[in-house]
């Protein structure tokens, strides 16, 4: 079967910026993080990680697995972290250069349920969902890189590797995993990245895979997650750490308290990576929530909480590393008014703060439920924001004084060549204002569903070659032989 071209990426390139925190505020937050790391410490249940911390000057209490990091140790380690690097793709045209000029966005990830593509019934997510949505994401210029959007629950023992298989096989873009959470699994994932890159040197120069590991709030790390991160970093694959500290339950019930507790978790993890592999590409991701005071529920899109996504961008840059910002994400259960109303503000603000990467497109219900058409709806909002923060053509041709003079008062511009030349360049939504035969407009959600189906029917990205496919099969067989599921 012939494959189809993958459209070029269209990252967000802001023409102006805003700043949330003053320099002195950033310094106070960083200083508080350093105080927490030195005085309270981090719980690290990985002996391997504790050994690395100890060898590099941390004070380690092996009984309680608490690691305390003196400020000079933190600052020395973090000074090795690169601010700019490349996130490679299967095809070089889709490499992402994190150079501070553009904002690349990814899908959301690791949802657990899917509204079935055909039956529209709600069910547990499977590998084929990851594959299908990778193809949709491959087609969308809004998606800079792909997070396996749901969990491959039909492969319970080796789900993360099957998610990578489904992703790499269906998109030529960079893939970021958020589920490889133990050392053995990480080694197989690195093997897959090498297969995609072609060789170790390319894998290091243009890593096609990166990883995200969540910390545990408050102030703790996951053994498997950290050991997996060390494997990725050793292989030159970027690793990031995300804190989802929840104000009121796993973090203080104040925004500043939540920020510093979360920042301490992220920084401690990045420090470990730099101690073990100085110069390894890392990134910082602050995605806090707020506990609903009456229900105890998780609120990912409370307005004040969203402000912290932008604060996270500035903190990441203050530590000298790129960010993965919180974007989109909705607590709504279905696409509709609320989902759309909540979607754009975090993207707009993090873009204006200079975010490097962000994730969150395509899921609803607090990042757990895949509605196949949600990514198309989010893409519409993405492009609005992309144009909202861009500049405007101020050339004499755009000013069009001659055309206005020719038309004159009470004329019209319909038959002007200038109109023909320019009207198709205007960007506007292709979901809204789609007419029905009776002149009324179609529901944008129906249009989005149709577009999803059309992409799935027609878009076949360049596949892995036969040798790569065979290698993937071998790796998956070996993993299943080791971990079960064969």
């Amino acid at each position, binding site marked *: 079967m012939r494959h189809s071209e993958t459209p070029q990426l269209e990252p967000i390139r802001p023409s102006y910026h*805003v700043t949330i925190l003053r320099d002195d505020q950033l310094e106070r*937050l960083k200083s*508080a993080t350093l*105080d*927490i790391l030195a*005085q309270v*410490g*981090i719980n690290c249940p990985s002996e391997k990680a504790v050994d690395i911390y100890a060898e590099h000057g941390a004070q380690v209490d092996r009984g309680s697995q608490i690691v305390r990091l003196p400020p000079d140790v933190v600052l020395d380690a973090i000074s090795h972290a690169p601010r700019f690097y490349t996130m490679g793709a299967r095809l070089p045209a889709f490499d992402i250069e994190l150079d501070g000029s553009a904002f690349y966005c990814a899908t959301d990830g690791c949802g657990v349920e899917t509204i079935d593509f055909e039956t529209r019934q709600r069910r547990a997510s499977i590998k084929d969902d990851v594959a299908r949505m990778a193809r949709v994401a491959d087609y969308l210029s809004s998606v800079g890189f792909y997070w396996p959007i749901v969990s491959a629950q039909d492969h319970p023992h080796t789900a993360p590797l099957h998610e990578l298989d489904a992703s790499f096989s269906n998109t030529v873009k960079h893939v970021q995993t958020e589920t490889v959470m133990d050392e053995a699994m990480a080694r197989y994932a690195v093997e897959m990245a090498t297969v995609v890159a072609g060789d170790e040197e390319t894998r290091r120069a243009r890593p096609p895979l990166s990883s995200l590991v969540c910390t545990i709030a*408050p*102030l703790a790390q996951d053994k498997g997650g950290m050991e997996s991160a060390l494997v990725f970093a050793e292989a030159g694959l970027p690793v990031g750490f995300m804190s989802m500290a929840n*104000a009121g*339950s*796993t973090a203080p*019930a*104040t*925004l500043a*308290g939540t920020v*510093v507790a979360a920042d301490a978790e992220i920084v401690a993890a990045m420090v470990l990576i730099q101690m073990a592999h100085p110069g390894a590409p890392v990134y910082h991701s602050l995605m806090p929530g707020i506990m*609903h*005071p*009456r*229900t105890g529920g998780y*609120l990912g*899109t409370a*307005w*004040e909480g*969203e402000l912290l996504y932008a604060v996270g961008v500035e903190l990441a840059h203050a530590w000298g590393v790129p960010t993965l910002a919180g974007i989109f994400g909705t*607590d709504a259960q279905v696409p*509709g*008014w*609320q989902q*759309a*109303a*909540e979607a*754009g*503000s975090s993207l*707009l603000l993090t873009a204006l703060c200079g975010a490097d990467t962000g994730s969150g497109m395509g899921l609803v219900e607090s990042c757990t439920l895949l509605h196949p058409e949600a990514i198309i709806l989010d893409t519409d*909002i993405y492009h609005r924001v992309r*144009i909202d923060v861009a500049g*405007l*053509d*101020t050339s004499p041709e*755009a*000013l*069009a*004084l001659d055309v*206005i003079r020719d038309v*004159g*008062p*009470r004329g*019209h*511009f319909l038959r002007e060549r*200038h109109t023909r030349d*320019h009207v198709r360049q*205007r960007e*506007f939504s292709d979901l809204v*204002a789609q*007419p029905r035969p009776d002149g*009324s407009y179609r529901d*944008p959600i129906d249009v989005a569903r149709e577009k999803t189906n059309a992409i799935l029917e027609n878009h076949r990205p360049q596949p892995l070659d036969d040798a790569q496919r065979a290698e993937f099969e071998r790796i998956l067989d070996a993993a299943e032989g080791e971990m079960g599921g064969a």
Partner: protein
Amino acid sequence: MTSKTPDIVPFTSPFRGELLSPVQLRSLKQGTLRLLDEVGIHFPSQEALEIFADHRARVDWDGQTVRIPPDLVDRAMSTAPRSFTLGGREERFDLTLDGSCSYLCTDGTGVHVADLETREMRPSCKEDVAMMAQVCDALPLVSFFWPPVSAQDYGTTAPLHQCHAALIHTLKHIRGGMTVAPPLAHYAVEMATVVAGSERQRRRRPPICANICTIAPLAHDDDGLATALTYAEAGIPTSFMAMPTMGSTAPATPLGALVVGDAEVVSGMVLLQLAHPGAPVFHSIIPSLMHPRTGGYIGEVFAPVTMIAVQLAHAWGVPSLGGGSLSTDSATIDWQAGSDGGRGSALVPLIGGEICGYMGLTDSSMVLYPEKVILDHELCRGAYDLLHGFSFDDRDMALDVIAEVGPRGHFLAEQHTRRHIRDFRLSKLLHEHAGDPSPRAPREVAREEFKRIYETHQPRPLEPAVLAELDRILAAAEREAERK
């Protein structure tokens, strides 16, 4: 029993963006000056043509076109005040238009209403204006009440009845002046005088302002001009609003549309300054796009266009009506309306503009769903929380609490949590739950909230003598309208 109207909450923002450099702005203004000088503007009004002729503009009497030399534009605009006050019924509702903050307004002027009770779509009427004024009176982020719909139960005097319904049902500033048959315009001024208490007060703290739409490209409406001159003479602040549509009534480029709109607005402001130097005027360009395939109207334009429109107003030394907008082209309250509202509210503090927001209508400002103003207000409150800056002190960082809890603990039992967890301003609309854990539809909650306010909020009424005087003015206006 009357209720206290809450103080209004203006939007201040540390995040305002400015796209054009001073040099780029000057070049755009020079484009406007060239159009005014070389192409001219259609003024179908003998009175306006005479005013321009008296001030040595080049008047083509047959073509009713005026070419205005740049020095005359500059001289006229130099008398326009950069800052002035829009009055409320009490001083705490006065709006100071000086660029330091944005005041949010309702949208206008629709013609259909989804009835609050029956949900049937019907033509709008005066009672709808009264209902909306009463509810908006209770919404702190609504600082400026534009009658959202037309009083279609009153023919040619509808704008006066809209003004009347608003003046008696809210203490906030009213956009009470619209284009009317010229002999009726002074009745709006009379109503403003009665509510203000005197002519002097009307001029100092005018309780109404006016908006006059231009005609794109490069033209004015005869009744609009006559009405605007009446309002300006009375000190009623007046905006000219250009609505150029890229591709049909303006070039298919944003900058081309802006310069067409700017020429229309500036020509109107120049006329008022020549006739009544110092008259308070403001500037408004609301560009749109013609759908290239259907020819339909796309009201949503991108932020840089609106941002430049606001910059242009300020570059001419007058306030701006325009900025972030929650108005939607969607026919109903759906995904599109949510997308437009969420984005529009977030743009309010980024774009600035003295009057902006446009809350409450769907279908390109044609249809009123009463509950939409509650939803829009909530989105604006969210944007206010989100974009109001981030301040904290050492106590907020709670380092002692973090140390006390330590790794792998929790904060549920902490006194600090009990003290502060209620400080988060969670949305009652977005995070409201039914008896079971499932969330309620925000629109349903909003409709309930609208009804609750409508049933319980009674703004302080005007004095009986003032009400009687307003009735007398309306009756006189009706008689004059019948005579026409």
